[in-house]
């Protein structure tokens, strides 16, 4: 749960992300009484967790955005002492939201 919340906060901290997308069926992390939409946290074989972010983004270079998000999440998780828990950070872009001019 902590990993998912840190990943959510790190993603939303990027101004190139407009929101996280709760629509995909697997796009949520739930523990009793609490749910984080747009982030999936799955136990990885061999220990740790694989985090997937479902992102709605501005029309910017999306692969670069994904690499930035991956780095942000990793830094945030390490800063909170959970670095050993994190295996991979996957990014799925599910939608883009237009601004006045695409920023390429």
């Amino acid at each position, binding site marked *: 749960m902590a990993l998912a919340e840190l990943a959510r906060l790190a993603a939303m901290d990027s101004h190139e992300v407009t929101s996280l997308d709760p629509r995909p069926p697997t796009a949520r992390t739930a523990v009793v009484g609490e749910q984080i939409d747009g982030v999936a946290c799955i136990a990885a074989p061999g220990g740790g967790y694989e985090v997937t972010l479902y992102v709605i983004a501005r029309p910017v270079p999306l692969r670069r955005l994904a690499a930035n998000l991956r780095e942000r999440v990793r830094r945030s998780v390490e800063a909170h002492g959970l670095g050993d828990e994190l295996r991979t950070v996957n990014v799925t*872009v599910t939608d883009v939201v237009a601004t006045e001019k695409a920023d390429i």
Partner: protein
Amino acid sequence: MATQSSERSEPSRTPERRPGAGDSGGAALTSEHGQTAIDDAVVAKVAGMATREVPGVHELGAQAARAMGAVTQRVGIADARAQGVSVDVGERQAAADLTVVIEYGESIPKVSQQVRENVIRRVEGICGLEVTEVNITVNDLHFPGDDQPDESRVE
């Protein structure tokens, strides 16, 4: 009025998966740190947005699709920006089919070429996919005054 004009490029339709191609977005699709996935709907939407940016393009989609789109958009289950756009997306390449309505008086070949160039630029720039082909069907012309309701014959 349905003016048909289709400009087709190379026949190879299926995007190939060539290593090294289409990396303009700056990050690999899969790395030891995780995977990046871009939904086909995103590629279609980017292509649609790029098409609308070109002066001389009035609308996207065939007449029936536009009529249906008007309804589905009103109830919030469709997005106008992907209307009239069909994409085939591979891991590193994409191909797009566009159906457009062009303003009467514009040069169809010129607008088509500008659409093609802009779609390639935007899809490569935003999605990091190499665009193998952009097929454009001009299925109608828009005349000034087409959007005004018909005057009533009786007062």
